[in-house]
């Protein structure tokens, strides 16, 4: 019978802006460490093969598929999950617009989309729709056809720039 490893590794990193220490079996992915050892259930698994984008988190501000990253690799880095997006002042503009515009239907892919969209807006505060499509094309959504997700990103981008942008009536009520 092969040896079952009981030995745990210990790392320190920044999680959603706070210093954390955690011990876990060294073979674990960052996704497993977040969910099983840190009890942060907002990060979801869709395939655990890097195919669907559902488990995306930000590592040092860059999107990463947490199912393909070893937990060990978080050592000394800064990791952001969906739980870290809201501030005491309220939801992140992307969270607000995803909730309001119908960008989250079943909600399972939503945390991944939110974080990848946040990365996009940090680098490009005024993305075109084509740039949004490119940025999000590694995240699969089966519910929405993506249209309402683009609208949510555009609306949040405008709010973050301090601009007023109302959703076109077409987006809310269909074509006139």
């Amino acid at each position, binding site marked *: *019978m092969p040896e*079952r490893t009981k030995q745990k590794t210990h790392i320190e990193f920044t999680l959603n802006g706070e210093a954390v220490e955690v011990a876990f079996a060294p*073979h674990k992915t960052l996704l497993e460490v977040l*969910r099983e050892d840190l009890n*942060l*259930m*907002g990060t*979801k*698994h*869709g*395939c*655990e*093969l890097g*195919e*669907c984008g*559902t488990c995306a988190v930000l590592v040092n501000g860059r999107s990463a598929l947490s199912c393909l990253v070893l937990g060990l690799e978080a050592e000394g880095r800064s990791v952001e*999950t*969906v*739980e870290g*997006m*809201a501030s005491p002042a309220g*939801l992140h503009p*992307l*969270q*607000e617009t*995803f*909730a*309001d*515009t*119908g960008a*989250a*239907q*079943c*909600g*399972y*892919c*939503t*945390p991944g989309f*939110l974080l990848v969209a946040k990365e996009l807006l940090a680098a490009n505060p005024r993305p075109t729709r084509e740039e949004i*499509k490119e940025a*999000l*094309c*590694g*995240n*699969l*959504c*089966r*519910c*929405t*056809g*993506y*249209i*309402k*997700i*683009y609208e949510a990103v555009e609306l949040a981008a405008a709010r973050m720039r301090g601009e007023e942008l109302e959703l076109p009536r*077409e*987006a*809310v009520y*269909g*074509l006139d």
Partner: protein
Amino acid sequence: MLTEIVGKPVPRKEGRSKVTGAARYVDDLRMPGMLYGATVRSPVARGRIRSVTFGEGVPWDEFVVVTAKDIPGENAVALILLDQPYLASEFVNHAEEPILLLAHADKQLLERARRAVHVDIEPLPAVFTLADSLARTQTIWGEDNIFKSYLVDKGNVDEVWAQADLVVEGEYSTGAQEQLYIETNGVIAVANAEEGVTVWGSMQCPYYVHKALLKLFALPPERVRVVQCETGGGFGGKEEYPSMIGGHAALLSWKAGGRPVKIIYDRAEDMVATTKRHPSLTRHRTAVSRDGRLLGMEIEFVVDGGAYATLSAVVLSRGTIHAAGPYNCPNVRIRSRAVATNVPPHGAFRGFGAPQSIFALERQMDKVAAAVGLSPAEFRRRNFIRQGETTATGQVIREPVDMAGLLDRAFELTDYQAKRERFARENAAVGAGGVKRGIGFASFMHGAGFTGSGEDYLKSIVGAEADASGRVRILAASTEIGQGTNTIFAQIASDALGLNYDLVEMAQPDTGNVPDSGPTVASRTCMIVGRLVESAALGLRQTLQGAGLLADEYTEGDWREACRQYVERYGALKSFSQYKPPPGVRWDDEKYEGDAYGAFAWAVYVAEVSVDTLTYETRVDDFVAVQEVGKVVHPILAAGQIEGGVAQAIGFTLYENVVWQDGRMVNNGMTNYVMPTSVDLPPIRVHFEEQPYEYGPAGGAKGIGELPMDGGAPAILNAIEQATGVSFTHVPLMPEALMRGLSETT
């Protein structure tokens, strides 16, 4: 009283929890002492089990092991028939059929153990295609491989062939499609003889799981409890399958003396072992007059049900009834059959048979139009069904219907006529290897609610309760799976009572606490269950008024005060409402004749494509969806249903190809089974016409969920025919097939 909120884009009830990561899906739940479960499955499609052996290197004494012998009740998944076992014991009838269950606290060790179980099976000859099943190369189910057949017979089709100026024949087929919800199937179960069985899970229909568990454990209804967790998409894929995985987890827990057992499929297992859309074959023979009037339609429709009956009979029913579409034709005969093959059972998927038969019909209508020398639009205009005319089942359309108006609107929004002419001109000048363009459309309808007498059998019940603070809770087993059930029910109830939307909430679907409002399927949630929500809510008001605590006109303050006094004096304030068919509805199950659905949604969808004749890639460049769905309850959610459904239809048409080898899906991953990504989809432009339905809730809502799956495939293939001049008859249309089709004509 407040102003209406039906029709307004109020925030969805669980919106905030879904964007903060707070929403709890089943895999987010953990229980003390919980074990993980795994399924040992058949490596072959058909055969006799010789032996099961447990390999070396695994501490088997630490494992919970369940075989068919451990089942306390009946080894059958109770649905329509009882032919599908929970665990195969002697014979297997499809690849990946469950044979044995394992549970252990250590997930890594569990996976090693699963791989160490060896099942020795003596293979038997198998049937993998619909054609072989019909030809009965082997008899694999019943006496003739046929799960179900229907005959719809209107007028006398035998007499029309002689009078017809033209008879046009066509044959069309569709492939399997994976639902591909992003959250895979998963459950947690706690089960033992003392406390009964409880299952928490990702599901559409808690009472289906409940019914199945009663049979599996031979327990009375009050000893079984099923709770729906937040569910990461269903699309039909979590209609019947949760009864299987839920039963498996419960069997393991039962054997483990009641320790909680969690089973979460990984993506590969979910894709290879669970249900998919039924592949289909449709043959059309259409009689028309020289001036383009439909005289007769003879339609043969066959679906591949896989190895067990599951829901195939009802999928076939919906596909059959939709097969002749929104046309007025005096003579129609539809013969349909669901047949058995040795593949995992095909099951519910948005549209439920209708996308298959409508694909065939709307390809055939373009073919007939060309044969009589009319444009596809003009031919349809001459045959669209109108108020007072009858469908194939003899259902009189009592409500106003304006298919021609929808067509006009769709053409206006897409500039169809001008584009059709321009593409024809420009394509003629495109050289070899260039990009050709086309525009095409499909016109169709989709019935809401269970077919025929189905709703009458279901007799769904919805409850409403108000507490002493005046808060209203809706008690229904209808699930929120992303489509917006929680939100529209709250809108409907708050409008019915004239209360603030925030005062109304939904109870979690839990069979221990909510009545059976029926399954969350068949575009029935808004129209059928929504109506019950409305009347249950109104029952609360009647009770308060009957008790003399509330005047006809009241404020929210009056309501709260009335509730407070009622609860103080009489205890719980509850009201229930049960389904009754609208007056005048008749359906004959024997003749398959009459009012198939309470109401239909009507639609015209237009697709614009470009076809690269060098790479054989097809892109959908624009998509316009015009539909009449009755009163639109929530414009953002409604548009979201259409956009998402169209996206799935585009996948069904151009990208999603299930590759079978010996009855097993071999491309069971998200990189080789390709669903559309953000860069694959066109703008999807949605337009609603509203024709209130007399018996719908909230001023006349009808069904919406499945409709958008129906029109995409034929609209796109009709557009590809304009682009290439080749009439393709199978979806998915993969680049290889496009290449073959185009090469054969040049």
